[in-house]
């Protein structure tokens, strides 16, 4: 199994109310799913916006690892390496905090 990696998570504006306004935060995890778990532990409420009750990425949400959509890789099982960037973007444009 891959070991834990420290990665940067890029937070879109509508989710920054959970991260005290931070646009990027650092978490550790071996996979995208682990990183989302770690994100939720630090910023409760964020994971249910990203994943549904069955733990799958919501259909309107895209997750990118270094710019590549994880749907084209292994979804939430996509492995992470130290220094990776994990981006969270709603599938389409939306409003944000002014």
């Amino acid at each position, binding site marked *: 199994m891959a070991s834990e990696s420290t990665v940067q998570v890029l937070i879109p504006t509508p989710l920054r109310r959970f991260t005290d306004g931070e646009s990027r935060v650092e978490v550790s995890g071996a996979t995208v799913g682990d990183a989302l778990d770690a994100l939720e532990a630090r910023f409760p409420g964020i994971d249910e916006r990203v994943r549904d009750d069955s733990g799958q990425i919501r259909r309107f949400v895209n997750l990118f690892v270094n710019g590549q959509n994880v749907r084209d890789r292994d979804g939430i099982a996509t492995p992470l390496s130290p220094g990776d960037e994990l981006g969270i*973007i709603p599938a389409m*444009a939306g409003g*944000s905090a002014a």
Partner: protein
Amino acid sequence: MPWGVSYFLMKNSEYAMHDRAKATRTTPEQAICGPDAALLASIAESAVARSIGNTPLHRLRRYERYLGLPETIELHLKAEWVNPGGSIKDRTALSIVRAAIKSGQLGPGRTLLDATSGNTGIAYAMLGAALSFPVTLVVPGSASEERKRTLAAYGARVIYSDPYEGSDGAIRLVREMTSVAGDDFFYADQYNNPANPAAHVATTGPEIWRQSDGRVTHLVAALGTTGTLMGTGAYLRQQGAVQLIGVQPAEAFHGIEGLKHLPTAIVPGIYDPSLPDRIMGIETEAAFEAARALARVEGFFAGSSTGANLAAAGELARELASAGQAARLVVIGCDGGARYLSTGLWELG
């Protein structure tokens, strides 16, 4: 895709360099010239401009039965996807362009510039091609692939804003650009331009009133720039006691393209909060379920904002039915579904 701050900055500085290197700038004298007669004439002659509006209003009998509504509750859908650019925003863009040409703001040496999450941009790009004026659009990098490619097909210049900043990030970038290079651009500013709601006062409202035989009781319209609800609503209110229902995403983090979650977004200047009777919040999943049901029950394949309107209308219709009221609901069908196929929402299964 190398999305992120560095990409955004790179595009931004590339833009600024391009601007400084530009040989010809519009002089103040040119900027205050009267309307460009040739451009005005080209609107009258344009087949594309003339085919905007006069869209059908369809009664959704099968969808009414699917929802289990009584005969006394009618749902009617305004099919805006039949506009030449594929959305209700063709009306908005044409109105803004016409007003700008008449006032002399758009003419020789001027490029139309605006922030758009997609449909208005497509309409501007289409009109720019049809009437021969240059168009530059700032679009969030997260806009769907179909939209980006459609803009490219019409030949518009597109600058992508940081996808993590959403549509408000595009607005902020446009404001920065106009402060640096204001004279070169006509900033169309769909969020604050009175010609946006005026389009619907002049066309969408009268069409709905006529097509519903003056018996529309409720208008259900999604809120993005809010121009549709403001303009159509204002017109219908003058005609009779029509309830105006605005639809927004239930959550700030959503996937209904073009819609704004007003409590957390830059509120458009054209928005008058005293006009709507009610604002309904719809989950992204519910919007897509309604769009899917519409496709399967009626055979109309519409986009997610239409789905949001239908989901809200369905909820409202059930309330009215249980209260024993009769109603004729008019629901805005903002655009078609094909523009969203690349997003996860229409994945098979």
